[in-house]
């Protein structure tokens, strides 16, 4: 970065105002950088120098911090940012091919990420948390799901069209409604549901209800968990079983609603009947809109029982039925009762004992007993005590914290206040990653509401206890999920973990005792206080009490967000809740715990999910991503995928993680290109073991897990690569594309091939020029006859 080279100017008065509004202390560096980035889409060097001249922030700090966090850009960007999600679920569904396709389509030169006209800037992001829509692409605030290499260019066009029409997306403000009606149309508007089409459903439902003045309230609710069924709405009628309508189109909405609710007033009734009739006429010829189809897409509670029945909702209690920001509804459903109990009935020590007795363990991954942590903080001495809610969920393939923050903000706030009371904290901070704008907005709004109602601030609920809660936005660093790095980030520093001890419990934020708990951990607290620790302890297994929220993604029929009692087996999760593997593939492995976890092979699927059992097999609970892999997934590629991620996210502090993971990745690259040797495999294993035993923080200590578990359970696949073969047909350097004799000569492949590797030969079997082919998979995905096959490259060379 060289400030002298940038010619761009910046608006001084705007920056002065921003600085005045944000503050001048050294810890304000990240919020100020975020403001500049929002304004200019990048960080002009002169603006940064100006900030240093006006604040306590030093040049060393601003340069160090702004280059550490991946949210910040130092060169000008295009007008729109295209975020291509490369989270696990998206990766296994070909996200990199989507990136390549967009890169090619936009004509970006070489490694450049912006098209020559400066309209779009491409960016790979670790996880948008929309695993159910994989592969997902987000352009500014619009999210596109299930993108393919051939549909990718189209979404850019669609985006520009929407832009021109002035459409706005993502503004799903879930304003609370105090209308109290028994009839409800429940529509989830969490970020992935909205992106999955529920925003359009909501719009349609509202216009119908208003138009016909229907006696029903359209209610925005939190996550239902049935990601695989979106767009989805639930109709709740007084004295009747509620109905789920799944995978519906906006044009179906009117008809569905009018079947359940009668328009009020004579004219409306006539009008409504006519509308229904006309709708039927208009839509029935289209295969999507037929009555029969609609009937199929209506499911009732019985049929979702297998999905919901085996789950147990504690952290996500009242799943899909309460409005996220409706504080009265929350209170009616038992909300703040635990807080009241804690404040009025129990001493801090008693609250801690209850949490200890419940057996609750940290849901962030490592599983440290929560009550013990609280006790340590409670007993530590300092001038002030802090509580921090860790919402820096960065695992690719995991999105439960986002869901909890978006759907149950009050529950987490309540847990946070109780925790603060128990440990004696007077200030609390929600640290939430910037990639979750809706979660940030909801928590901010929920905090405002709570403040208004006296749940936070001085004298909570009229008692002597006071607590202040605020939100700090992360800036794009996975390692900040590690508690010491997270604290550094709040202090406005590079997010480099520190050696422990001292633990944050003794010396945390600003050197004071600090409690850091994960969102899901805090979401369990109120339930425990309300229902008693023994009831919580009775759920789950002996060492792992309670439930765990998982995001279920990958090659599975029902991509979903679930909460299950600990001890359920992986097989039960996949078969009973997930509906088994998608398509006719065979399950090969389950990746649990993201980049810190490991791959459990199909034969160990009867392993019950609890902390110790997973560790025993080399995996880890992690934060709860569960990605199902089938026979078309290459395990070496999966290991490489996770290592690419951790290597990229390493803070760069300690030798073993900074250089070691990089060297591991080099070796995996060698193996994936067929150049690996037996010595490489040995070096890889040695190095992995040493990194695990010697790294400074949790990121480094667990980074080798995906490699070690795949080496342990899928060694033969590594060995196949040494021979130059990729059994799953994934590693580009080891495969070739070929067209078999079922080819009808339809020329589609020839037309869609981006590099003209398929000759245009109508009515004749096509052939692929192997030397020109880039293995982008476009032809295979586009072939109507399934005539294009992936074969081992060695076979082609042998010919």
């Amino acid at each position, binding site marked *: 970065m060289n400030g002298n080279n940038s010619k761009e100017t910046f608006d001084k008065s705007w920056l002065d105002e921003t600085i005045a509004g944000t503050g001048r202390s050294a810890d304000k560096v990240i919020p100020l950088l975020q403001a500049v980035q929002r304004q200019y889409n990048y960080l002009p060097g002169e603006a940064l120098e100006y900030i240093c001249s006006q604040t306590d922030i030093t040049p060393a700090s601003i340069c160090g911090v702004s280059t550490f966090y991946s949210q910040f850009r130092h060169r000008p960007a295009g007008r729109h940012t295209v975020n291509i999600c490369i989270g696990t679920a998206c990766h296994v569904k070909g996200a990199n091919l989507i990136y390549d396709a967009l890169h090619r389509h936009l004509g970006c030169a070489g490694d450049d990420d912006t098209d020559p006209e400066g309209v779009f800037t491409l960016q790979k992001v670790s996880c948008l948390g929309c695993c159910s829509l994989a592969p997902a692409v987000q352009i500014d605030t619009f999210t596109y799901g299930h993108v393919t290499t051939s549909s990718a260019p189209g979404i850019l066009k669609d985006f520009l069209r929407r832009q021109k029409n002035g459409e706005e997306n993502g503004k799903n403000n879930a304003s609370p409604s105090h209308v109290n009606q028994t009839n409800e149309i429940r529509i989830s508007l969490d970020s992935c549901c909205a992106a999955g089409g529920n925003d359009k459903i909501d719009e349609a439902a509202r216009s119908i209800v208003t138009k016909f003045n229907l006696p029903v309230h359209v209610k925005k609710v939190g996550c239902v968990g049935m990601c695989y069924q979106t767009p989805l709405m639930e109709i709740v009628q007084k004295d009747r079983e509620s109905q789920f309508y799944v995978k519906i189109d906006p044009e179906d909405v009117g008809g569905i609603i009018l079947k359940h609710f009668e328009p009020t007033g004579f004219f409306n009734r006539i009008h409504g009947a006519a509308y229904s009739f006309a709708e039927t006429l208009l839509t029935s010829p289209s295969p999507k809109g037929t009555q029969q189809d609609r009937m199929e897409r209506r499911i009732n509670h019985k049929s979702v029982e297998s999905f919901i029945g085996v789950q147990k909702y504690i952290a996500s209690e009242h799943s899909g039925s309460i409005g996220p920001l409706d504080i009265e509804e929350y209170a009616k459903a038992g909300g703040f009762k635990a807080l009241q109990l804690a404040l009025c009935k129990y001493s801090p020590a008693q609250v801690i004992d209850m949490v200890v007795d419940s057996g609750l363990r940290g849901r962030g991954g490592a599983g440290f007993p929560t009550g013990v942590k609280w006790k340590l903080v409670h007993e530590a001495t300092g001038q002030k005590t802090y509580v921090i809610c860790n919402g820096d969920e960065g695992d690719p393939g995991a999105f439960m914290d986002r869901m909890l923050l978006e759907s149950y903000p009050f529950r987490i706030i309540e847990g946070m206040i109780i925790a603060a009371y128990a440990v004696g904290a007077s200030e609390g901070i929600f640290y939430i990653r910037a990639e979750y704008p809706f979660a940030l907005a909801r928590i901010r709004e929920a905090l405002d509401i709570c403040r208004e109602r006296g749940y936070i601030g001085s004298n909570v609920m009229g008692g002597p206890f006071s607590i202040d809660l605020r939100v700090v936005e992360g800036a794009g660093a996975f390692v900040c999920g590690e508690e010491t790095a997270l604290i550094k980030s709040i202090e406005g520093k590079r997010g480099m973990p520190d*050696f422990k001890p001292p633990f944050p419990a003794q010396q945390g934020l600003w050197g004071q005792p600090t409690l850091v708990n994960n969102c899901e951990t805090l979401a369990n607290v109120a339930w425990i206080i309300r229902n008693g620790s023994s009831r919580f302890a009775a759920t789950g297994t002996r060492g792992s009490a309670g439930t765990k929220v998982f995001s279920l993604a990958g090659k599975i029929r029902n991509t979903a967000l679930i909460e299950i009692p600990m001890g359920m087996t992986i097989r039960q999760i996949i078969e009973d809740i997930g509906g088994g593997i998608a398509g006719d593939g065979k399950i090969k492995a389950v990746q649990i715990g993201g980049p810190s976890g490991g791959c459990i092979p199909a034969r160990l699927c009867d392993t019950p999910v609890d902390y110790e059992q997973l560790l025993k097999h080399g995996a880890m609970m992690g934060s709860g991503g569960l990605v199902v892999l089938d026979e078309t997934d290459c395990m070496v590629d999966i290991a490489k995928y996770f290592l690419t991620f951790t290597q990229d996210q390493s803070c760069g502090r300690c030798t073993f993680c900074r250089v070691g993971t990089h060297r591991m990745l*080099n070796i995996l690259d060698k193996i994936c290109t067929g150049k690996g040797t037996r010595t490489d495999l040995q070096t890889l294993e040695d190095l992995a073991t040493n990194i695990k035993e010697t790294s400074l923080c949790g990121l480094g200590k667990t980074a080798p897990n995906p490699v070690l578990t795949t080496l342990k359970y899928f060694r033969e696949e590594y060995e196949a690569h040494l021979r130059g073969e990729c059994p799953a047909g994934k590693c580009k350097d080891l495969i070739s594309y070929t067209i078999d004799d079922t080819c009808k000569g339809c020329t589609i492949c020839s037309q869609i091939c981006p590099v003209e590797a398929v000759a245009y030969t109508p009515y004749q079997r096509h052939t692929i020029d192997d030397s020109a082919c880039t293995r982008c998979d476009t032809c295979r995905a586009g072939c109507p006859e399934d005539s294009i096959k992936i074969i081992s490259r060695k076979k082609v060379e042998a010919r």
Partner: protein
Amino acid sequence: MIRITIDENTVEIEEGATILDAAKRAGIRIPTLCHYEGIEPPVSCFVCVVKIEGRSGFVPSCSARAEHGIVVQSQTDEIRTRRRQALELLLSEHAGDCEAPCKRICPAGLDIPEMIRRMESGDIDGGMHTIKSSIPLPGVLGHICPAPCEKGCRRKKTDSAITIRELHKQAASADLNTAEPWRPSIQKSTGKKVAVIGAGPAGLSASYYLACKGHACTLFDKNPVAGGALAYEISESDLPRAVLKSEIAAIQSLGVRFVLDKEILSPQELLGTYDAVVLATGENSAEHFGLECDKHGVKVQSDTSMTVKAGVFACGAAVLPGKIAARSVGQGNKTADAVDRYLNIAETMRPAPKGFDCRMSKMSDEEFSQFTQSATRKSSIDVRGTDKMPAEIISELHRCYQCDCGKKEACALREYAHEYEAFQRRFDTGNRKIYSRREHASGLVYEPGKCITCGRCAGITASKNIAPGLTFFGRGSGVYVDAPFGHPMDLAMGDAFNECVKACPTGALWVRNTPHPNGRLRNGKA
């Protein structure tokens, strides 16, 4: 006070101290590349790892607190392995050479860049010191050496190689013309006697270095004139005899006794009178001595030059035929070292410590062009001849790119790599950093490719509140150190300049003796 055990030593130390502090107290040496008093612990290098008994994994002793009652291991094999691996990881991306290619090629191992630096600064004595540390016959070799060093010279790629041979020839002749030619310092007499047989280049060289080490040395030769092949096989026109004579006279003046015109047939017999014998009898002489031979000549242990007979050493063409005098000279030097160790260390004959030499893979074209730009010291140096050295020699000295590392003698990474027997290419993934040199007005050179991001320099400027100071940029494997907003690094370090350069454990930060001519001295500070 708390008490901990390190490697079976009990140490008492204040509460809050680290294991490293405790080890220091107990006199146990734990290596570290990043720890530095007075700054926030960087906890970066992980060369200081130790094991606490009963706990899993390894911990950095610079940060792990000494807790009462813990038992620490700091020197076991598994710890050495971890330390070695940390060093090997650092070396796997280390972009830089310890030694210059010319030095590596020179069969006598002459430190050519160092010789040039000393001569360049007008220090003829210093230049002779460097030369004679490897070559006792610089004038002779200046005439006859085929100069393999020049084939390795990087300057060759730009225009032509430095005329290295000419430089040490000129230095030697300039030295001889002074009133008081350079003399090595001679160590105190050891009372040991060594016989050297054969007064050719190998024997002369061995005698020279044995004499320097304080051993009483007798040099035998069957011919009436000393010099071996130098005197008998090379023509006067190729090697003026006056040059040979004067350099032999210099060896004689160190106290070496020359016994000429005397053929020794059984070196073993000399062992009664002498504590060690060195055979330097030249090509095809081996069969006379009744020692075990291989197909080339006398068989010796490659690392000690000792024959099968204890106390009898052999070097030069007697071991391996060849016509390059520089090689014989180098072997004479190496053998003198081995004899010295043999005489001093009675029990076992240990092999000579092999210095660690980090080798950078080939420079890319971009790297080379950046390198030559930064290393070209031409424009503003005032090239004027002196009475000692003509102007053309001085401008030739200025042409040298100085390819060796500016901190090769003071590099802690190199020292530990040697100590822990690190293998530089353990992780040979062809993925080293880009090599580059950044020159500063003050003479500061920053070589980011050699930076191990230990954080000492940035930590020092931060602890002293120096603005703008140095900082880390980026993260992960892309992390690097620089000054903010493109400030020159030397200015950015302010008053901590000297401390930062000294604290840098590698050759990433160093200062040229002679400031870079493209800039000016900075406020007299350097």
